């Protein structure tokens, strides 16, 4: 697994609330049985017309960066981890929003894609900055749990200590669980099968 310490980048700014995982990766691309190759399908129906030609009002057009800044309630809907794979595969390292859907949040964390939950007020300030100065560089420091940008200031964000250590050291949940098989067997022995 990758590791995260600090992320410094311009932002890809998509100020839309409730971006669901069907927008991030449409269901018709989920027929494959591998994890790779989803990056080119990211936000596909925003970027392309049905005939494959580039869409006229693609909100991502011309934007570059590894930090996605989106509206409230990012990643709602389907549990498809393909959404996190697509963002990661397309090079994103963090998503900033004032709220994340629970399943997407876990999927992101399991793929070294950092969900940075900021206050609505901070997201508003950051959005104002990105509207007028789209080349503004954002800095995310996982160790200090801060996000900052010129003009928007700095804000602390929450992450539990266990997950933070996993991301900084490149550990994964499954390795943790497999290393603790004895506790699981002990639980099973002490509980009636349900």
């Amino acid at each position, binding site marked *: 697994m990758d590791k995260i310490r600090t992320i410094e980048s311009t932002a890809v700014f998509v*100020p*839309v*609330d*409730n971006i*669901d995982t*069907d*927008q991030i990766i*449409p*269901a*018709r691309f*989920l*027929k*494959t*049985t*591998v*994890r790779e190759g989803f990056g080119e399908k990211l936000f596909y*129906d925003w970027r392309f017309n*049905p005939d494959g030609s580039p869409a006229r009002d693609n909100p991502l057009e011309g934007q570059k960066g590894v930090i996605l800044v989106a*509206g*409230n*309630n990012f990643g*709602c*809907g*389907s*549990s*498809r*981890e*393909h959404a*996190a794979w697509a963002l990661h595969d397309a090079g994103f390292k963090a998503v900033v929003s004032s*709220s*994340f*859907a*629970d*399943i997407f949040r*876990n*999927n992101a964390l*399991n*793929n070294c894609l950092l969900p940075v939950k900021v206050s609505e007020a901070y997201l508003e300030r950051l959005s104002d900055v990105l509207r007028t100065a789209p080349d503004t560089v954002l800095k995310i420091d996982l160790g200090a749990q801060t996000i900052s940008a010129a003009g928007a200031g700095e804000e602390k964000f929450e992450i*539990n*200590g*266990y*997950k933070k250590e996993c991301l900084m050291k490149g550990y*994964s*949940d*499954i390795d*943790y*669980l*497999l290393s*603790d*098989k004895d*506790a*699981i067997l*002990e*639980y*099973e022995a002490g*509980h009636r099968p*349900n």
Partner: protein
Amino acid sequence: MGKTLFDKIWENHVVKHIPDGPDVLYIDRHLVHEVTSPQAFSALKARGLKVFRPEKTFATCDHNTPTIDQDKPIADESSRRAVEQLAANTAENGITYFPLGDPGNGIVHVIGPEQGIVLCGQTVVCGDSHTATHGAFGNIAFGIGTSEVEMVMATQCLLQSKPKQARITVNGRLAPDVTPKDVILYIISRLGTDGCTGCFVEYAGEVFRDMSMEGRMTVCNMSIEMGAKGGMVAPDSKTFEYVAGRRFAPEGAALQECISRWSALKTDEDAVFDKEYVFDAADIRPMVTYGTNPGMGVPVDGTIPESAVGCDAATFDKALSYMGFHKGEAMSGKKVDYVFVGSCTNGRIEDFRAFASALKGRRKADGVTVWLVPGSKSVEARIEEEGIGDILRGAGFEIRQPGCSACLAMNADKIPEGKYAVSTSNRNFEGRQGYGSRTILAGPLVAAEAAVTGCLGIPAGY
């Protein structure tokens, strides 16, 4: 301080607590389908592991499957490969699998309860957000991603932080034309599409006590559409009656022993929730959605509002423009092109009974394409046994074969660009039912009215 139903089940499943981190949570049932499992099986194999507790794991194919000609090979090559992969993976790991055409096959959240796989007081997961359905039996049931599917396969456990808890109480009695789907669409329209993010919900009050098990499943199913991790209803005699006699359920003395334990599964009177919401059944009308998230709902005889909870002005306007609708317009009378009845939300026998009963001697409207898709082989069989099939065919309808179908249009059942579909499914997202499709979510009675009139309207004759 008392405990909630959720607290009691959660605590019974904690293997250990990680300081400043999540709990290791034991999982009783793992449901698997072909879309979110192949990468987990491959990763497991790459580690040299097999599924740790195959007897707690059950699999079906539903998303990629066609709803006609199921006896023939699946025409779409990648869909066929995905389904074949699941058959191979389950065989290799000794997992019970219900292949296409098997009497046990169907949508994962329809067959789980129907086969008695899902019981009460359990932790139930599936790589599918509508796993919340199984909360109807008093379970902690929630959707997970594929990395988590791999964790459950490898260890029968997950790392989970305990969520906050909300209780949604609906008092009173529902009008005869109001279905469980209308209840949950009403709740989501009031709380917004992220109104319960970070929370697990318990549904309480007279409306849910009076509701059938299938109705409770419809309600719990859509908990995720307001951001909730899951939703649950305390089990009662109706729950136990539903479970008894099902294929994988305990029998005889073992069942009685379970029922005596399950009877204790309720929230203590002095338990405190993080959030409490109370609604009145008298305020709930047959509902439809007008926008591109399930929170954008109004009564079918209502008008499109100026704004929606949890939706900023730009997002709201974008949704209306996608739908081709305008603020202040009446929903009633709007023409529809397609009607889809099915999905893990409304693909059970009660939904087809409701649809058939709402026809009231009328025939399918010309110019409307109607897809009636049973949630499972068992539902398909019941439709015929109860004579509903004859009524439907006599009224000009065709019944298709079971699967997820047009709910997410992974198979050939796609709504064409720009067309309006009244759908008993769970999501009206942009493009969900096919590129450019315009979805209007509703319950089976409103769907029937649209199927016979070609327009949105209050179900006639109630």
